[in-house]
């Protein structure tokens, strides 16, 4: 179809607008992470898109090296929160994926479980706040406040519906005949799952796990309510990056933001080749 030139201009303007809205703040964060204090705290005409004197001071600062320009010293460095985030997001993802995948397989293949799919959706219908207060009370009874396991567990529970629904869609789309073939060729149900279904589902597992991991990784509310100090995650720690003298430490926050963006990006690149390839590519005749 031949499109008119005004339409094309309009189309690209819209695309450019969407790209700008989503990417400019990210670029701004990256730029700020490398600015010295004089530049990130500047206002008005002194504000620049790119750092004039790029520096790693912000990164050094959050890992405990005192800055020459910044008089404040941090009470806690970023190392521990990064570790806390990595550990809890990973464990939460493992819990959600294990439970979600098992439930999805059972439901997809045997149609048992009654209203479980809907019940799982309902878990997401409540505003998180409404759920989190009772959870907070329960967790404190169980001694799970400010505890890596407590946080991992709730991450697993909260993202379980996503893991379940994503995996169920993939299982529903997988041709039955492939499993039937394995059954006929001498496998038990369990062997079929381990030898055929899971290896075939690797791309689906990878993309679902990435999605769940990002959800856990970017959580602020739950970590804020369930951690106090030892297991504060990156977002919670980031909020605390301020001082009475300089106010919000935007440079340090930006540096931490850049660090926080790294794990999901690495995971995304690692699984990219799985995402591109089709799920059952070549298994069936076309």
């Amino acid at each position, binding site marked *: 179809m031949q499109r008119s030139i005004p339409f094309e201009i309009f189309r690209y303007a819209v695309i450019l607008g969407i790209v700008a809205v989503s990417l400019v703040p990210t670029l701004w964060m990256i730029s700020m992470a490398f600015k010295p204090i004089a530049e990130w705290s500047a206002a008005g005409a002194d504000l620049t898109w790119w750092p004039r004197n790029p520096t790693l001071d912000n990164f050094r600062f959050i890992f405990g090296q005192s800055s020459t320009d910044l008089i404040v010293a941090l009470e806690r460095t970023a190392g521990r929160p990064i570790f806390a985030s990595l550990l809890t997001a990973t464990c939460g993802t493992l819990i959600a994926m294990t439970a979600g995948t098992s439930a999805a397989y059972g439901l997809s293949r045997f149609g048992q479980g009654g209203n479980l799919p809907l019940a799982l959706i309902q878990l997401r219908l409540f505003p998180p706040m409404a759920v989190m207060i009772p959870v907070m009370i329960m967790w404190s009874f169980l001694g799970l406040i400010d505890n890596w396991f407590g946080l991992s567990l709730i991450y697993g529970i909260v993202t379980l519906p996503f893991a379940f629904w994503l995996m169920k869609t993939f299982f529903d789309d997988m041709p039955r*005949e*492939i499993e039937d*073939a*394995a*059954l*006929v*060729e001498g496998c*038990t149900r369990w062997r079929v799952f381990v030898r055929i279904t899971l290896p075939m589902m690797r791309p689906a597992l990878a993309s679902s796990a990435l999605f769940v991991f990002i959800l856990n990784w970017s959580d602020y509310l739950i970590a804020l309510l369930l951690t106090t100090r030892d297991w504060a995650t990156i977002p919670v720690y980031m909020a605390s990056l301020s001082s009475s003298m300089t106010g919000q430490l935007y440079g340090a926050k930006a540096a931490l933001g850049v660090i926080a963006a790294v794990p999901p990006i690495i995971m995304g690149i690692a699984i990219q080749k799985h995402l591109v390839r089709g799920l059952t*590519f070549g*298994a069936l005749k076309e």
Partner: protein
Amino acid sequence: MASIRFENVSKSYGDLRAVDRVSFEVPDNAFFCFFGPPLSGKSTILKLILGLETPDSGEIFFDDRPMRNVGPSDRNVAMVFQNLALFPHMSALDNVRFPLVERKIDEATIQARVAEVTEKLHMAHILHKPPAQLSGGERQRVAIARALVRDPVAYLMDDPISALDARLREETRVELRRMQQDMAKTLIYVTHDQEEAMSVSDQMLILEQGRVRQIGAPHDLYDAPNSAYVASMLGAPAMNMADASEAVQVLSHTPRMNRNAKTVGIRPENLKVARKDGPGRVTAIEPLGATTVLSVETAGITWKAALRGQPAHEIGAPVQLSVDAGSLHCFDARGNALPAA
């Protein structure tokens, strides 16, 4: 090594009676073909044999041994699925080895068996590739090799060669027939291609909406169909069907026919066409080489006649139609076959 017997087996999915009180016996070492239109229950019967489905009622026997409580992996039946169902994450070789590895057969035997089968199917050069890198015909061979590699009581094939082009299909079906005879194994074959079914099978079973319509050798079914349905399923072009009273008016020297006949059927190769003034008009001529298919229209009926060679006919020319007494099939109002006279 086994006969397979169905006794009054039924299977429903919701309101759909996929298989309805079906009884038959597949004799040992037979090439047995299930034939019918889509949704006539062919694939469901295969699943019942495999144990992937359990019958709602009735019983399935392998050599007089009831199969009710025997799972798919213990039935020792090999299957080539309609969509092949290869394992996409394994190489062709691992696909073929799979049934033996899962049965924990020793490595030396596995290698010997795999070598034998892959050589027979000329597929040594594709063994290292994953299914995604194989052509349709190569995938087909992998699927067939996976079935042949072990020593099952019977082989089941669900329309396994429908993805191939016409010439390759003809070659493959002859090859399958030859292999089945070499191995002296029962082969149960499902197809929707009547030519394929007739050309390879010892016996065929014709299904209609989950019910058995007729079982027998292909030529018996062709020559003596027990119903109009069976008659119309076999043969290409299909049998001419006409209302008995109308046929009498159209055919010159009509043979004596059963007085209860409501419908008569005439195979195209039995319909004689004479270039004389008569009630028919030639409407189409399809020269196919060895035969020529003539479409002849008489008051409201289009007849197909398959004539040997390339006889001289012209479109629009008047013709006379006739048939020999022995070639007339008579059916009653419900479509059941009647004796001709």
